[in-house]
């Protein structure tokens, strides 16, 4: 009996001290919560970038931030709810897989602000319904596609290195808007910079399976492609692998993929999810939060191109820089509809 009492005493001490430790977390500063999709924090893409943005914002604005990694699709609603219930000021969901979950939770907590990357809230039937407390963070992917398209076209036209066939290609995962925007901008740039260059396009119909991406890649290379632009997430890594196997060039997407295959990946079309997160946190802090569609583009540093491989000549880089300036000034408006489908 005596030992039981002692045990109970120890536990009660542990519990009270730990509760104190926890309550130390809550303060008066803004609270920002980030919920990843099932890709997790180490996806080297959207989730990782969003987390970078969160950490940058925490450092620069002195806000409290937390992250929850979703392990299953069915965790989205409870994870978003967890933050909303604790009266977080802003809850950010990563990825278009969460459109329905954000819709559900945001309706329930009208006083909590939400943001969703690459999507807009959608009801149970899949119909978009903008909510006064949800910011939809979209990107002008066509601008990123245009920038890498300028580099690809210049290299194809000048027959730089192994790019000897004046043919460039692209592969999407599934033809959904964010994917096709990239491809549209890419093709627009090639047609503008080098009208004589042949353009091919394909879809792996998958965002995960590398084998499918590689199959499309080998097919494209057999048709004389020597610059391959992937817009297919994990499946696109197979597309890059095909370029590596056959000794031609590839272009990465979303994050900087130079490390995937050095010497093969000449640059990447960047979607700076970290900037979108950072700027949205800033907007909440500055009381400038805007619900509904928010666009991230070259103009607000949300779009760009990645590290250039040494093989990329100076004139290609200069052309990309010029395009960057022209898009920023509005002189160039990249198309967002795909011209060459197959």
């Amino acid at each position: 009996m005596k030992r039981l009492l002692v045990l109970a005493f120890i536990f009660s001490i542990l519990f009270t001290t730990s509760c104190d430790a926890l309550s130390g977390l809550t303060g008066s500063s803004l609270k920002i919560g980030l919920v990843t999709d099932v890709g997790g924090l180490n996806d080297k893409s959207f989730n990782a970038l969003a987390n970078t943005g969160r950490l940058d914002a925490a450092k620069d604005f002195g806000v409290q931030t937390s992250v929850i990694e979703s392990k299953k699709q069915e965790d989205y609603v409870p994870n978003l709810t967890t933050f909303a219930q604790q009266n977080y000021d802003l809850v950010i969901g990563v990825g278009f897989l969460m459109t329905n979950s954000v819709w559900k939770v945001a309706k329930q907590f009208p006083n909590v602000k939400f943001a969703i990357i690459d999507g807009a809230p959608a009801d149970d039937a899949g119909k978009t319904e903008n909510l006064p407390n949800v910011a939809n963070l979209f990107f002008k992917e066509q601008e990123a596609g245009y920038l890498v398209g300028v580099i690809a076209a210049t290299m194809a036209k000048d027959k730089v290195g192994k790019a000897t066939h004046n043919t460039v290609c692209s592969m999407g995962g599934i033809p959904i808007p964010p994917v096709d925007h990239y491809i549209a901008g890419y093709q627009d740039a090639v047609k503008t910079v080098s009208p004589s260059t042949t353009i091919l396009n394909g879809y792996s119909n998958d965002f995960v399976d590398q084998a499918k991406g590689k199959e499309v890649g080998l097919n494209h290379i057999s048709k004389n492609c020597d610059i391959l632009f992937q817009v297919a997430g994990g499946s696109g890594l197979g597309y890059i692998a095909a370029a590596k196997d056959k000794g031609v060039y590839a272009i990465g997407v979303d994050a900087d993929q130079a490390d995937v295959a050095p010497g093969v990946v000449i640059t990447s079309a960047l979607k700076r999810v970290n900037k979108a997160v950072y700027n949205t946190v800033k907007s909440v802090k500055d009381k400038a939060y805007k619900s509904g569609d928010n666009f991230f583009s070259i103009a607000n540093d949300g779009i760009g191109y990645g590290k250039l491989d040494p093989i990329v000549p100076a004139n290609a880089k200069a052309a990309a820089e010029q395009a960057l300036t022209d898009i920023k000034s509005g002189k160039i408006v990249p198309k967002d509809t795909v011209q060459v489908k197959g």
Partner: protein
Amino acid sequence: MTLASSAPPTGPLAAPSVRQPSAQWAQGPAVPVISVLVALFIGAIFVLISGHNPIRAYAALILGAFGSPYDISETLVIAVPLTLAGLSVAVAFRTGLFNIGAQGQLLVGALAAGWTGSQFPDLPGILLLPMTLVSGVLGGAAYGAIAGWLKATRGVNEVITTIMQNYIVVFVMHWLLQDGPMSAPNALGTPASSPIGAGAILPIIIPNELVPLSRLHAGIVLAVLAVVLFWFLLWRTSLGYELRAVGLGARAAAQAGIDPRRRMILVMAIAGGFAGLAGMIQVSGLFHRVFDGFSSGFGFDAIAVALLGKNSPIGITLAAILFAAFARGGTLMQANASISSHLVEVIEALVLFVIAAETIVRAIAGRRGTPAEALA
């Protein structure tokens, strides 16, 4: 095998034993409880190494799982399918079979329930809900029975077949939902079926005014009934007696006139039925449709739940709640204490590891003399 056969022939709900309390403790909850404590202790070392305060980590874990009515309801939402899948594994264990296929059986149950529920959307609940339930249970049972039949007639090891069955159903499911007959447009961004009819939905049992967005549904009632059924079946029917007899020694049972092969098919069907019920509940209670990547992992956690629960009804229920609390609390631990939620996976693995090393735990329990007396 040793785990299943080393379990006492009578469950904790059976007639009171005349053994000493200390022996009961060592036979009963000693190993699971010590396993969890040892795992938590080793987990604390990991937390320390990662530069965090273990007390704060575990406090966040507990608060995350039980800190608010919403947290408790979410923990229970996870515990429901875990309990049922745990029963599925345990009933097979009791008969000396390893059912590694609870995940696949759960998915078949979900597909069958989702198909029935969405095929007749206009039927009233009084008809549609039982139909959906029966579809789910029968779907899982049929899938489980295949492994039992292969074992009984061809001697194919059920571990292999049930593992393979898990893969088969995942890919068939992908096809059904992506291009196949169950595919439907949706807002999930992943292949999914059309929603089930209103009549097939298990209602939320906590009003929104009380706990906003609570997802705790009537499936928890079904889970409790299933636990009772599991106990009744195994310890209060002659079939249960035969199943347990086969589990303790198939040859001896055969000598006593019990045909182990028929029991194998039957018990795998029962196991599949429990898992199929879990799948049906996930469809009818939570998501109201089936989608690709549905309820991943429950069937595998269920193996741990059954082991930790020593294949007893109460043990499984408690173990399922514990694992659900890990899952739910881990999320909050990451959010509130910035400790990776993967820590709970480490702890879960350690729990299993320690259970597997049961003899070590027995040694610890034994050397302490009689822990029951020590605590008194």
